[in-house]
């Protein structure tokens, strides 16, 4: 057996450690805005402007700190204040600053950061924000992959001198190969058997081979597409000036996006999910519109309608697509007095574009906005809108501007072009939005419940068990602090059900102590020696405590591994709570009782009285 001294040391050590890790939670996190000056240093004008506007909007700031020469951090008491401030800063339309919404730790001491002591992250139900679950439709990508493979097979077989009659991909992920002779079929089969990756031969007979894309390849495509989508979504979220967001995959083809407190949700959603790109096409001036409207459209052209519904015939060949654009920004065309998008092309594509536009000086060119959406029948549909039609005045090169959209549209499109286009169409499967005011209400009611429950249990124990109750309460306090510390260390996201889980843990954890104390009372009836009685009480209650807690722990763990959403937050707190309460009731309470027993006779007298009155 460990001596009391060592136990006390261990308990004190764990207690101090848990207080350190719990500490950051007391202050929690602040909603904040970080302002970055792009080139110059922060000047006093900006600070005065911010302070004046804060006063006008009746906003109390928590602090305004110049972190370095170029960075300014404003902390707020509520997310609503943060949003209002963000709004007026954005309206200032100051191009020289970057503004980003943040959530920062209130206490940033180097020591705490060094030992990784951070406050728990708050779930969306407590801080407000958006949770979106999206599904990536990979069907198209697989089809494209199969199609690409079928055309590359043609070259591969040619290289091997194998003559084929026809190779075609049908939309069921299968490629059919037809041959003229059995020899060719056999050679092709041999070739496919040894060099074909990602496909399986499913039919080989009668001058015909069928190959089908296999699961491994499909999963690889899925994985790649999901990764790419996550990458682009993250870029878009960053472009929107939101930090602290979570974008991660769930399952094979789903992605979770969690954004704390964002005010313009519909815009964000619009931007996140868009698979939009631009395409530059020449206008077909050889064919008259009238002929085209009568259905006589030349093969290489396609009929479009402009915004005002006038028809226009475009040559169905992209002279430039969105992928060629390496940078885009919204701006203002002063000559035309219109909003515009400044486009910058990548080196690779400049030459061709320059040539094409040079050849076509004087001819009109259309800029088409293409967007794939999922329609009601769950099919992918490509929507094409013409943004503008303009005559090419000179050869276009690396930098040029396009007009035809309003300011907001220009900004959004520039953002989309900057972040790159999504590799697949996505659809929203689940969406949860919690307003910041509701989040604050939730955290208030959650914390109130925990506090009241805690105080109620403290009283309950003292009323029931007097001195022993006080000892149990010390155990309960260590339990609560340890629970918070562990949750902070392993980075649990605190949710409202999680808070309920903490409250419930407080109520249930005391059970171990009740088991022990009732057992002690029982033993006291038999024993004359009280120290021995208490010892026996602890000992005999032990197996009950372990059995009953382990069964609950099993439930907690099952809930954790299988559940999602609210279940998970609850399961985590419940499970950790069980472990900490076993520690606090068996180890902490026992040691404190031992200390009292060896040093203080009063406890025994109290115990005696308690025994007699009952």
């Amino acid at each position, binding site marked *: 057996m460990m001596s009391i001294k060592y136990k006390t040391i261990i308990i004190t050590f764990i207690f101090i450690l848990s207080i350190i890790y719990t500490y950051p939670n007391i202050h929690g996190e602040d909603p904040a805005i970080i302002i970055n000056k792009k080139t110059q240093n922060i000047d006093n004008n900006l600070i005065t402007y911010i302070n004046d506007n804060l006063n006008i909007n009746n906003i109390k700031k928590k602090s305004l700190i110049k972190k370095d020469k170029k960075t300014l951090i404003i902390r707020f008491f509520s997310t609503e204040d943060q949003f209002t401030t963000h709004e007026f800063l954005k309206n200032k339309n100051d191009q020289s600053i970057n503004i980003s919404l943040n959530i920062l730790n209130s206490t940033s001491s180097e020591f705490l950061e060094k030992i990784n002591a951070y406050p728990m992250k708050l779930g969306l139900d407590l801080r407000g924000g958006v949770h979106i679950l999206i*599904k990536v439709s990979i069907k198209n990508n697989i089809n494209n992959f199969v199609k690409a493979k079928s055309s590359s097979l043609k070259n591969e077989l040619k290289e091997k001198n194998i003559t084929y009659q026809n190779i075609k991909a049908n939309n069921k992920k299968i490629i059919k190969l037809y041959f003229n002779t059995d020899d060719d079929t056999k050679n092709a089969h041999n070739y496919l058997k040894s060099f074909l990756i990602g496909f399986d031969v499913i039919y080989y007979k009668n001058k015909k081979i069928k190959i089908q894309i296999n699961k491994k390849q499909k999963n690889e495509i899925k994985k790649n597409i999901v990764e790419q989508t996550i990458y682009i979504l993250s870029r878009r979220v960053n472009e929107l000036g939101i930090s602290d967001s979570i974008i991660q995959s769930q399952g094979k083809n789903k992605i979770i996006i969690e954004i704390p407190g964002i005010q313009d949700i*519909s815009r964000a959603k619009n931007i996140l999910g868009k698979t939009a790109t631009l395409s530059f096409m020449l206008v077909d001036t050889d064919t008259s519109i009238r002929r085209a409207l009568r259905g006589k459209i030349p093969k290489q052209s396609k009929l479009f309608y402009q915004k005002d519904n006038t028809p226009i015939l475009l040559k169905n060949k992209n002279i430039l697509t969105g992928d060629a654009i390496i940078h885009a920004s919204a701006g203002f065309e002063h000559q035309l007095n219109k909003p515009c998008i400044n486009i910058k092309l990548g080196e690779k594509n400049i030459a061709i574009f320059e040539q094409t536009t040079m050849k076509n000086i004087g001819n009109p060119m259309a800029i088409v906005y293409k967007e794939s959406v999922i329609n*009601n029948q769950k099919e992918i549909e490509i929507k094409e809108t013409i943004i503008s039609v303009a005559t090419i005045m000179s050869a276009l090169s690396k930098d040029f501007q396009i007009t035809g959209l309003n300011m907001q549209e220009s900004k959004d499109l520039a953002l989309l072009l900057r972040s790159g286009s999504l590799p697949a169409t996505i*659809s*929203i*499967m*689940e*969406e*949860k*939005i*919690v*307003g910041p*005011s*509701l989040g604050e209400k*939730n955290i208030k*009611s*959650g914390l*109130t*419940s925990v506090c009241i*429950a805690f105080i*109620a*249990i403290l009283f*309950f124990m003292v009323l029931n068990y007097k001195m022993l109750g006080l000892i149990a309460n010390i155990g309960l306090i260590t339990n609560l602090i340890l629970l918070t510390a562990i949750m902070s260390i392993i980075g649990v996201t605190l949710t*409202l*059900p999680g*808070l*309920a889980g903490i*409250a*419930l843990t*407080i*109520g*249930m954890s*005391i*059970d171990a102590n*009740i*088991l022990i104390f*009732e*057992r002690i*009372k*029982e033993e006291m009836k038999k024993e004359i020696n009280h120290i021995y009685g208490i010892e026996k009480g602890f000992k005999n209650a032990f*197996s*009950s405590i372990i*059995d*009953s807690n*382990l*069964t*609950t722990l*099993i*439930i*907690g763990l*099952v*809930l954790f591994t*299988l*559940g999602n*959403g*609210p*279940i998970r937050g*609850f*399961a985590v707190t*419940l499970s950790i709570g069980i472990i900490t309460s076993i520690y606090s009731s068996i180890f902490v309470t026992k040691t404190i009782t031992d200390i009292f027993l060896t040093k203080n006779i009063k406890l025994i007298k109290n115990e005696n009285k308690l025994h007699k009155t009952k």
Partner: protein
Amino acid sequence: MKINFIKLNKISMLISIILCILSIFYLSKNNINLGLEFTGGIEIELESKNKIELNEIKNKLNNINNIKIKYYGSKKNIQIKIKNTNENIDNIIILIENQIPNDIKIIRIDYIGAEVNNETIKNSINAIVIAIMSMTLYLTYRFKYKMALSAIITLSHDIIIILGIISLLKLEFDLTTLSAMFAVFGYSINDTVVIFDRIREYSILYKGEKNLKEIINISINNTLSRTTITSLSTLLVTTILIFFSGEYLFGFSIILSLGIIIGTYSSIYISTIPLLFLEKFK
């Protein structure tokens, strides 16, 4: 003070059978009011600084299919629920935003697409089955299989009655309610285990001296104060949750509270009945 629980067996069995039959009756009559996570659909919470006229809102929005509107927590909050809908969420939101007065604000939107709910149902059923199975395994390992079986029978009894109460009170059965049910499973098993633990201990202590009925009776009596005090302490917390944790956790807290009462009742009065019955067939 000693109570002869064995003598009360017949009465408690009668009560439990009636409760179970009533539960099954309500379950078949009312069904379970499944929450959004299981049906898919849209849930929107609106808030105003002033009292909201429910009928006014209802009249304005009655052209939306499957729409249900009610006060939520207070008269300043309402909840709009549209289950089983194929409508586009954004269209619905725009429609609602256009119809409601300016002082009412949307503070929460939950949209769950039709594809998610099948997965949720599957996961939930898996969770229940695996939880019960792993508990049975653990209990069989720690106790005799007869005790394990009795504990599981008691648990099933609790589940039926809780489901009955959910359908009687027309509480919504969503993931939060489900986690409350799980907590009750844990609690109920916990209570039963404490009693069985004592039975196991006394079976060794009084081997040959006392028969099973007597052992069970002493065990229940000796753990009685613990059972009641723990129930009271936990009930204290869950009652606090009912009143302070807000509308969102209301159903959760109600189920926890009622579940604890049922769990306590069943471990004291019911859990040993199947044990006695099973022991007859040695």
